[in-house]
């Protein structure tokens, strides 16, 4: 479904990603592991079309290099930021409606329940009054409602408690069951057990990629042996 070929990203004269190759299949959970600063977020945002890059990205066999963010979204790719944006004046339900394919209130209520939030939150504003954890779950709900083919989730597990961690893991598994491929970015090896495959990024380069257990061993032993 997704094929990244020799991807290089240069920002402010610095090579953030160098010749990265990555492949993932439909409805697969692929974990992108790496220590801080390894280039995970840059790769995610390049796939979404936020950063320009050298190399090629193919989605369902089609070269998407020339497509903008929203054109890629309309093909079925979406991204949830590590720190979700806040929107003044926009209610949670209105925000979710933007993404939702099935725009019925019943569907919104089901999904908001699935991510462990109360129905009443639908009528809150996505402003300063929601906690970071609530925003992350709302973002996850927006992604589920969009029913994308590929969801890129940037550290949905950062800054959340253990209970929410388990819930988010369950939701990601559910997304897979519903046919969504998930590119999951994390530097937590605890998330690895829900993945099918994984890739380790280190100093902007892929140092391992393959079945999760093999990559897990390597990550535990040496998460980033390369120096920038």
């Amino acid at each position: 479904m997704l094929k990244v070929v020799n991807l290089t990203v240069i920002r402010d004269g610095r090579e953030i990603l160098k010749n990265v190759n990555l492949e993932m299949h439909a409805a697969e959970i692929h974990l992108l592991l790496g220590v801080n600063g390894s280039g995970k977020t840059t790769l995610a945002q390049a796939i979404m079309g936020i950063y320009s890059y050298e190399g090629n990205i193919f989605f369902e066999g089609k070269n998407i290099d020339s497509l903008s963010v929203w054109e890629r979204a309309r093909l079925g790719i979406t991204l949830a930021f590590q720190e979700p944006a806040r929107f003044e004046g926009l209610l949670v339900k209105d925000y979710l409606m933007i993404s939702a394919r099935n725009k019925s209130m019943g569907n919104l209520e089901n999904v908001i329940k699935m991510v462990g939030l109360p129905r009443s939150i639908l009528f809150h504003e996505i402003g300063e009054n929601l906690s970071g954890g609530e925003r992350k779950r709302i973002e996850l709900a927006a992604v589920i409602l969009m029913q994308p083919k590929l969801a890129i989730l940037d550290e949905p597990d950062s800054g959340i408690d253990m209970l929410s961690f388990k819930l988010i893991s369950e939701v990601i598994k559910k997304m897979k069951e519903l046919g969504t491929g998930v590119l999951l970015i994390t530097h937590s090896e605890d998330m690895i057990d829900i993945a099918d495959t994984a890739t380790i990024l280190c100093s902007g380069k892929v140092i391992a990629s393959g079945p999760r257990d093999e990559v897990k061993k390597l990550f535990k032993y040496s998460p980033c042996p390369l120096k920038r």
Partner: protein
Amino acid sequence: MDEIIKKEFESLVKYYESSGGNSRALFSKDYASMVINGNRVLAKNSTRGILISTRRIKDGVSAKIVIKEGFRTKYPVHLCFGMLPREGKQRIKTKIIAGAGSDVKFVAHCIFPNAQKIEHVMDAEVFVGKDAKIEYEETHYHGKSGGVIVIPKTRAYVEEGGEYTSSFVVKSGRAGLINIDFEVHLSNRAKSTLISKIYGKEDDEIRARESIILEGDYSVGLIKTRMALKDRARSRVIGKTIGLGNYSRGHVDCTEIIMDDAYAEASPVVIAKNPRAKVTHEAAIGSVDKKQLITLMARGLSEEQAIEIIVQGLLK
């Protein structure tokens, strides 16, 4: 109602409805209401606790609205000020007197659908009695030509424990030239919130001077300005709060989004003349937040659609 007035009334009501107004309120005896087209009063309705009187003045209309002491109602007062012709000047002088302990909401719509050279001057005095509460919500619906000059001026005086909230909204059509001049004086424990939300386009020009004078002890004031400007629109905003009373609290909060060749200038002014007063401010002017924009685009909205949602949210 003579035939000409009836026709004008019906036309205005049609625009009032299409601009989101509740036209049923203009026909119901439960709602106090007033409808003015140009400088002619087309209809008015007083209720048990709200008395509305009007008279012609040299170049406009003078209206007095008196809310009886202790009168509280769930039915808002509906005001509809319109100018249906393309050109002309409307001047409305209003005096609102809210008796002690009363609690009333006003919903005002100002409608200039065909404006090419219209001037709308609103000169209001508001007296909020002890422990009374007035909420005044004014929404403008201008045409697309931008030929409107709007000059709203309000002086409000809020007695002990009273509360005055005003919101002034221009979101649809062209803003034209808007020159706001609001000033509120607060006594002990009185509160006030002044909200302005305006969308400027093409060569619209918006000037706003909003002040809250915290005269009383424990008085609280908030000036909240939200603007979005695109094309060559310009804005100059001064939000001013002066802390005079003991433990008075004032805050000025201005956020503006600018796009294209627009120009925005915001000057929050905070003055304290009492060491026990606290006055604060925040002002932010900038382009559309990139993270908000990308988040919406990653859900499949085009850049234009995403900007519109962000702007409408800010002005909501």
